[in-house]
């Protein structure tokens, strides 16, 4: 029998996953949280399918530390793979136990029983018992130690077809579903006052500036951490503005502003690790041995710092009752956040409970964890009163950990037959993993750096796991006689960085897939055909062929601009969803404006649980990647970050959004593969390749703004 899913090994207690309510309903629990990726819907479908009940009977309980299965973190497109596989197996166990009880009650063999919406019986016979008759309101009290057989995919009615999205009706009606909307008796509102930038400390604070404001419930000034709490939200904002005027700051260091980020990255390398099959090693660097007579091609690619830029400001609520702290948070890692808060607050981990509450889409590690500490520090000053704290837009843009800048050098040697004989990929970047790390020295939470009793930042360290961070998707999809990949870790980033959707895959795939087009040109080959020469994996070939067929069905739209199409392909992490993307662009040669008109996506995510949910993720990822690729770069000067709102950090607007068409290749008998980040890299490369097809200009540095296009045209 197959091995137990990792989440089940960690949480073998069946009652953690499945609970049969006294009547007519089933509660399921998961350690994964809804971040707009539709996981609650996918898990509802999986549980209803395995248990043979209507989806409406299944309710997913909000994740709470100490109560829900501990699945560490919602990241890396692993929700369906981790939680889905564990929950399916847990439901299979629950079902078997209940069928065994029913068999006794009905005096028949288990094998003769069928289940219809929770009613268990022998087909044709009148007498049935239900799940609720045999198990309602009672715990299972069972530890899952081995895998049992699950429902055959051939009999699926829900999985693969999809069910109505469970979280959407409330959002369409405008119900209070986000942490920002929490309402509790006695709720207070708080705001924080941050220093002007990373390298500032509080010089003086003139408390008299806040005197006489009756709305002030608490003023917290602890080191360089300042927060105000008020009875109402507007007063909290007014007090925040007064407190900001009351603070004088001193700059302890200037922010380092590299003239050329790629050169800065190369100059500050702190470790180089050869990567084989996606796994970095501590070993001597391999040396490429190009065959005689081959043509050498070299190119360098770069992307700037990119922001998560959630539409909602980060927010959290907290309640301190004198002994226990409860925090409501949209963190993607509540199980890491709880001990991290406990450490900073000097509490025992068991005294802190984090309840997940939805936020806006985060796309990785944004300010969610930081604001939880801000709220907790306020709540500690006001025992018994719940406090809801929201960041301002400027704080969100200025203090979130960004997706790090990256640069990539590629080299290939192409033989006379147009085949790549040797391939080399060097990638430099800062850490992509800055999440709360409760078991490391220091703290990754902003407020912890500012407290009187401050915590140092956790020193960034190179991650050497498979397909982590910087080297994610640095290993190519293609098979070459020689492949040399080197991860080059850069320790000290001028700006705070952490995980942004796709991590290193975005820039690595942008570089690889741009370079494949450049090599095809050297080999005088069609870019698609050139890729097919080097792809062995039949599933990768299938998505390429499918997306090409999709795009061929749609004739090019006549346009007064220079028009072109380009492709990008990758298998996310070389182990998850396959995605091939074609983008059609218009380039206005006068203004150098690039407009993406149409996008075609073909993907293979193995067994599809919720087809519309996957399509939504792939399309949303492609549109977001278009925004990164065409528009986005975090700007900063010696004083700090200057991208502080939507005017200074523009993103793609409705008028700039293309028509997107997506097709899935379903593989019901194969493992489900995470798809939420699969289109980030391929889309970026497809845009650059389309621009090159339209104009002959190869842009190797993101974003593809008019200014960058002009620079690339002249260079």
């Amino acid at each position: 029998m197959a091995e137990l899913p990792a989440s089940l090994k960690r949480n073998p207690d069946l009652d953690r996953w499945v609970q049969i309510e006294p009547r007519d309903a089933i509660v399921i629990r998961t350690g994964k949280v809804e971040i707009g990726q539709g996981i609650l819907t996918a898990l509802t479908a999986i549980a209803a399918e395995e248990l043979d009940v209507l989806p409406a009977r299944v309710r997913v309980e909000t994740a709470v530390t100490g109560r829900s299965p501990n699945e560490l973190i919602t990241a890396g497109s692993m929700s369906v793979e981790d939680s889905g596989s564990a929950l399916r197996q847990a439901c299979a166990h629950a079902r078997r136990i209940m069928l065994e009880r029913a068999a006794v009650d009905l005096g028949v063999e288990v094998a003769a029983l069928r289940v219809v919406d929770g009613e268990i019986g022998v087909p044709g016979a009148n007498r049935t018992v239900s799940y609720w008759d045999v198990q309602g309101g009672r715990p299972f009290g069972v530890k899952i130690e081995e895998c049992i057989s699950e429902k055959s995919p051939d009999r699926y009615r829900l999985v693969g077809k999809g069910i109505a999205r469970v979280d959407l009706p409330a959002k369409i009606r405008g119900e209070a579903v986000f942490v920002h909307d929490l309402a509790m008796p006695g709720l207070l509102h708080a705001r924080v006052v941050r220093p002007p930038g990373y390298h500032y400390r509080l010089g003086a604070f003139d408390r008299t500036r806040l005197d006489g404001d009756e709305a002030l419930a608490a003023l917290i000034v602890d080191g360089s951490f300042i927060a105000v709490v008020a009875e109402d939200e507007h007063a909290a904002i007014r007090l925040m503005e007064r407190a900001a005027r009351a603070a004088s700051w001193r700059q302890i260091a200037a922010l380092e502003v590299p003239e050329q980020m790629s050169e800065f990255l190369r100059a500050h390398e702190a470790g180089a690790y050869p990567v084989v099959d996606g796994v970095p090693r501590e070993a001597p660097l391999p040396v490429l041995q190009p065959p005689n007579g081959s043509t050498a091609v070299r190119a360098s690619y770069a992307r700037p710092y990119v922001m998560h830029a959630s539409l909602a400001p980060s927010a959290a609520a907290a309640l301190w009752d004198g002994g226990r702290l409860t925090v409501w948070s949209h963190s993607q890692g509540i199980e890491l956040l709880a001990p991290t808060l406990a450490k900073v607050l000097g509490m025992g981990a068991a005294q802190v409970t984090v309840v997940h509450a939805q936020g806006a889409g985060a796309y990785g590690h944004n300010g969610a964890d930081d604001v939880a500490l801000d709220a907790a520090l306020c709540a500690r000053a006001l025992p018994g009163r719940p406090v809801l704290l929201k960041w301002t837009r400027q704080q969100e843009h200025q203090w979130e950990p960004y997706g790090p800048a990256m640069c990539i050098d590629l080299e290939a040697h192409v033989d006379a037959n147009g085949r790549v004989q040797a391939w080399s990929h060097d990638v430099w970047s800062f850490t992509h993993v800055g999440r709360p790390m409760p078991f490391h020295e220091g703290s990754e939470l902003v407020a912890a750096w500012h407290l009187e009793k401050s915590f140092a930042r956790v020193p960034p360290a190179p991650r050497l796991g498979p397909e982590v961070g910087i080297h994610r998707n640095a290993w190519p999809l293609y098979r070459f006689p020689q492949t040399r990949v080197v991860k080059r870790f850069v320790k000290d980033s001028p700006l705070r960085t952490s995980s942004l959707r796709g991590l290193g895959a975005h820039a690595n795939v942008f570089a690889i897939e741009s370079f494949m087009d450049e090599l095809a040109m050297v080999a005088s080959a069609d870019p698609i055909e050139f890729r097919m020469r080097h792809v062995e994996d039949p599933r990768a070939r299938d998505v390429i062929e499918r997306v090409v067929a999709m795009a061929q069905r749609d004739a090019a739209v006549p346009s007064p601009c220079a028009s072109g199409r380009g492709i990008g392909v990758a298998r996310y992490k070389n182990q998850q969803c396959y995605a091939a993307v074609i983008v059609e662009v218009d380039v206005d040669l006068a203004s150098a404006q690039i407009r993406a008109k149409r996008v075609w996506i073909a993907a293979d995510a193995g067994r599809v649980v919720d087809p519309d949910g996957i399509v939504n993720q792939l399309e949303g990822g492609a549109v977001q990647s278009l925004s990164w690729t065409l528009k986005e770069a975090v700007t900063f000067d010696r004083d700090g970050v200057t991208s502080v709102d939507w005017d200074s950090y523009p993103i793609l607007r409705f008028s700039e959004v293309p028509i997107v068409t997506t097709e899935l290749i379903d593989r019901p008998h194969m493992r489900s593969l995470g798809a939420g980040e699969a289109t980030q890299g391929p889309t970026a490369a497809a845009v650059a390749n389309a621009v090159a097809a339209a104009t002959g200009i190869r842009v190797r540095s993101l974003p593809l703004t008019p200014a960058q296009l002009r620079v690339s045209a002249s260079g």
Partner: protein
Amino acid sequence: MVDLIVNGTPHTLDIPDGVPLIFTLRNTLGLKSVKLGCALEQCGACKVLADGEPVLSCVALTESFKGRRIETLEGLERDAVLHPVQSALLGENAAQCGYCLSGILMAAKALFDRTAAPSGAEIREALDDHLCRCGAQPRILRALERLAGHG
């Protein structure tokens, strides 16, 4: 005192001068559909209708709406039946996280009140001051174009 008609119900509210409309709607009247996104009139999340016209509620002050009819997303549903713009988006699963939806639905409602069958270009224009970070725009456009009778 400020007189407002909100979703058809008259209110006389004891709101001091200087309070942005969003906080009166969210915190005094409990209308949590109105979303705080930027408080800079840049993202559209806080859009409501005043006398049928779209307005951003995050900066505009409550007292400037005296005697006016305010509509929020909570007011669109009638007798447990969703408004056509709500059904259109629900039918296409036209959302990811959903934080931007309220403002977009209000902009769409104003547009469809004005013209029953807006063109694709009119729909894009009506939504162009709304940001969606999840990339749900293609679906939102498709849903509203379908409602307008295209494709």
